[in-house]
């Protein structure tokens, strides 16, 4: 099986503190991988290292066997949904404009998007189920609809790797479930490798093939069901379990003492 992402002894230092340390990681193509860890553990940094947005202090990252800068420069292999994709909620662009932006790298400087680019953008909106919102301003949409627009932007380059940084963080429970379903469905339809940073242990255990637990170092890399010990190693404290089932049920472990 070919590798989508490969990390060798990766260390990333950020403003003087170590965000990732000696990370060795292999992610096979076609897998749905969840990334789990406490705040400040380096989850987003891991994604940014794959994108080349942060440079390794030591070691290296390969994306489909190449350095990130080369992959990104060409545009199209990697789709990315950042943690807070809408910095300016009143920015005067429509949902379709936002999706089209994903193609600008491929369109090239000094050129205008072709009708074919528009078609691909509309197709991406169709895949996430919101073609009817294409002409609405991005700021007028609900949180869940906005996330769909940004996912459409990520997939309109027809990537092979899709990376999502806490895609459901500001959504209610219902919208969260719908979004996870959508991501799983896109993965199947488009034969994607998916890397998703997520806090929701329940969702991760339902959808993903592998889990990467990080707290500066990568602690383990094992298929679900998640072991409590593994989680506790990552978070450094006792862990509360929350699972969805036919009947929602909840198991809580108390702290000792």
């Amino acid at each position, binding site marked *: 099986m070919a590798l989508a992402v490969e990390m060798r002894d990766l260390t990333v230092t950020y403003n003087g503190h170590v965000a990732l340390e000696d990370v060795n990681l292999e992610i096979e193509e076609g897998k749905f991988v969840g990334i789990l860890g406490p705040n400040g553990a380096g989850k987003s940094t891991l994604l940014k290292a794959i994108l080349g*947005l942060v440079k390794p202090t030591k070691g290296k990252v390969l994306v489909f066997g190449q350095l990130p800068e080369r992959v990104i420069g060409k*545009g199209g292999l990697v789709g990315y949904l*950042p943690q807070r*994709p809408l910095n*300016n909620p009143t*920015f*005067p662009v429509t949902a379709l404009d936002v999706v089209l932006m994903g193609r*600008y790298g491929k369109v090239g400087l*000094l050129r205008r998007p072709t009708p074919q680019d528009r078609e691909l953008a509309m197709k991406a909106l169709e895949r996430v189920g919101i073609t009817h919102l294409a002409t609405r301003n991005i700021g007028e949409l609900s949180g869940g609809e906005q996330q769909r627009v940004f996912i459409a932007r990520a997939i309109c*380059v027809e990537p092979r790797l899709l990376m999502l940084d806490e895609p459901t963080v500001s959504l209610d429970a219902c919208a969260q479930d719908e979004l996870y379903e959508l991501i799983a469905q896109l993965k199947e339809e488009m034969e994607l490798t998916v890397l998703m940073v997520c806090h929701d242990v329940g969702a991760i255990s339902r959808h993903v093939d592998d889990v990467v637990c990080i707290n500066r170092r990568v602690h383990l890399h094992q298929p679900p069901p998640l072991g409590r010990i593994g989680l506790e190693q990552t978070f450094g404290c006792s862990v509360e379990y929350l699972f969805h089932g036919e009947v929602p049920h909840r198991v809580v472990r108390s702290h000792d003492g």
Partner: protein
Amino acid sequence: MDEFLSAGFLHRAFLAGVVVSGLCGVLSVFVVLRKMAFIGVGISHSAFGGVALGLVMAMSPFWTGLAFASMVALLIEWARSAGKVEEDTAIGILFSASMALGVIFLHLSRTYNVDVFGFLFGNILAVGKEQLWEVSLLALGVAVCTICLFKEFVFLSFDEAMAWVSGLPVTFLRYFFSILLALTVIVSIYLVGIVLVEALLVIPGAISRNLAREIKRMTLVSASVAVAATVVGLGISYWLDLPPGAVIVAVLCGGFFLAALRARKARMS
């Protein structure tokens, strides 16, 4: 009216005013959306150092001012990306340093008959034929560059990190926009002066944000508003014998409050 249109210097003032304010209106949209208002202040004030240097060395203050402003624009961008100093701190230091140098240069030049006041607050009626050409050519160049890179600048304003991920040359675009801004500031100095350039870089964008909801439309509205304010302002200043630069800025400010009021009413109803 006949007398008004036939006077050569007035004709030139109008032409220069329309060209410069239209250009400022276009750039203004990005200044507002990228939250670069203070960068505009920094670049425009730092032009003062360059203008004064030109006077000392008996060179054209236009070109020395341009060199100074571009250099400071690049330094601000660099400070912003290097992250060693807070961006607004860097701007504060650079522009006061540049103005201090300007005062020293002026003192050294010992020429007291220079129109310093004109540089600070604009003297559009003094625009000569040659200057009108300089201004028009530079403005045309900047406008063409901005229109050609319009979609890139929109993406850059929307989300820089994502623009990078999509494969846009973000660093180049950022520095290039700074240079375009510096050029715009320099051509605007004739119209409203170093101190008041900021008004042309911020207010048209702010007005159009209240009047338009789509970015291309917003750019058109912004440029039209800037040109309209300049024409009205020049007219008023001619008839009431007031300083043109200041009147233009006052008209723009009035326009902003009207637009804000209208947007408020639209929201309430």
